[in-house]
């Protein structure tokens, strides 16, 4: 999934805490992220794309890339909806 410049900006609006709490500084909404989402969001906030997230999770979770890719796509769509 392509990370558009607007989505990239919005991802950087999330102030991420180590405990998984993410605060959207633009809207004031708060979110809870599990450990996998925290690691994935950090990759995106550092400029990585969805392939970088998949690659990181394939290594970390020892799962088939197709499985990981489907999960990451679903999560990105959820994230995009929250940040819209």
């Amino acid at each position: 999934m392509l990370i558009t410049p607007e989505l990239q900006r919005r991802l950087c609006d999330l102030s991420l805490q180590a405990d998984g709490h993410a605060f959207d500084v633009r809207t004031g909404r708060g979110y809870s992220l599990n450990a996998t989402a925290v690691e994935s969001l950090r990759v995106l906030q550092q400029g990585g794309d969805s392939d970088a997230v998949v690659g990181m999770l394939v290594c970390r979770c020892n799962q088939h890339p197709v499985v990981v890719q489907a999960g990451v796509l679903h999560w990105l769509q959820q994230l995009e909806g929250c940040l819209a």
Partner: protein
Amino acid sequence: MSRPSQDWRGWRVAITGMNAKPENPGPGAAVARCLREAPGYRGRLVGLGYEALDAGLYQRQRIDSGYLLPYPSSGAAVLLDRLDEILAEEPLDAILPCLDAELPNFIHVQAELAQRGVRLLLPDREQLQARDKDRLPALGEAAQVTTPRVRQLTDPRFFDALDEADGWRWPLVVKGVFYDAYVVHGPEEARLRFGQLAAQWGYPVLVQPFVAGEEVNLCALGDGQGGLVGAVMMRKLALTEKGKAWSGVVIDDPELLAAAGRLMAALRWRGPFELEMLRGRDGVLHLVEINPRFPAWVYLSHGAGRNLPAALLELLAGSAAGSLVFPPPRPGVSFIRYAEEVIVDMGEIMRLSASGALTHATTRQAGTTTHH
């Protein structure tokens, strides 16, 4: 006559808006709290109220004395006479009006008060009228800010048969000229609220289409040159029955800030203000209201490191707007409001009712305050 001090930290400042009803408190007590907690402030704070039960007048830890004012409907001349009585008791360096209904009178007497050495930072009459609720669509168009249409009503029969072809459909928002707004879903409810608003605030009653969304507010100072000073943005987390913020969180919304900048450039506003905007479900920001004074949640500005009442005094003391230094906004700083009783001797209430004046015998020294 000695030269007036330019060090605002020692000023004697009067603040209105001392009513503190839990569901809809006035801003005055919060403004007083901001000034009392501003680093270095050691001056005297005077509360100005309209009712003997305005709780802010009795907050000894913040207010040194209190006086009652005549209701705004008495007019500017009566207000000036009363202020002269107060000035004879205690000279003032500045007055911070905090209520919409009194602003026209304070604007009217601003020049006379300046001759008496009392400073105010207020818009002029034209600026005040330009942000009237029924004129917001024109202002919004000038500033390229989306604004719901407004219709003035003097006849509640408007609600009996909405002109859907003209875009009027349920639900609607009915508003008083100065305060209060209700979402209404049908003719019977609308007529009830229309009657309540007309009885309390007079005619006309205003009606707007309802915009579903999240309310986001911005508080700042206008520098009178079209510029914005010290913006603090807030999203409401919890509301009272009247829709006032009971809890809120600082946000950093570039689009909201830009809209505020355009509105200030269009208005060339001078003094404190609050923008009430709605981010609709379509993501569009809609202008709901421009309040011409600090909001009741202004203490959050102190919590966010941008003490706006203190900044206002700095401007009155002659600092250039561009010279004021504010730390970056602190998204995530939140407030939760609570209601607290002030224990007062009945004699104080009676004294204030009878004489219109109340003085708290208080000694303030650096770091300590002793109440008598």
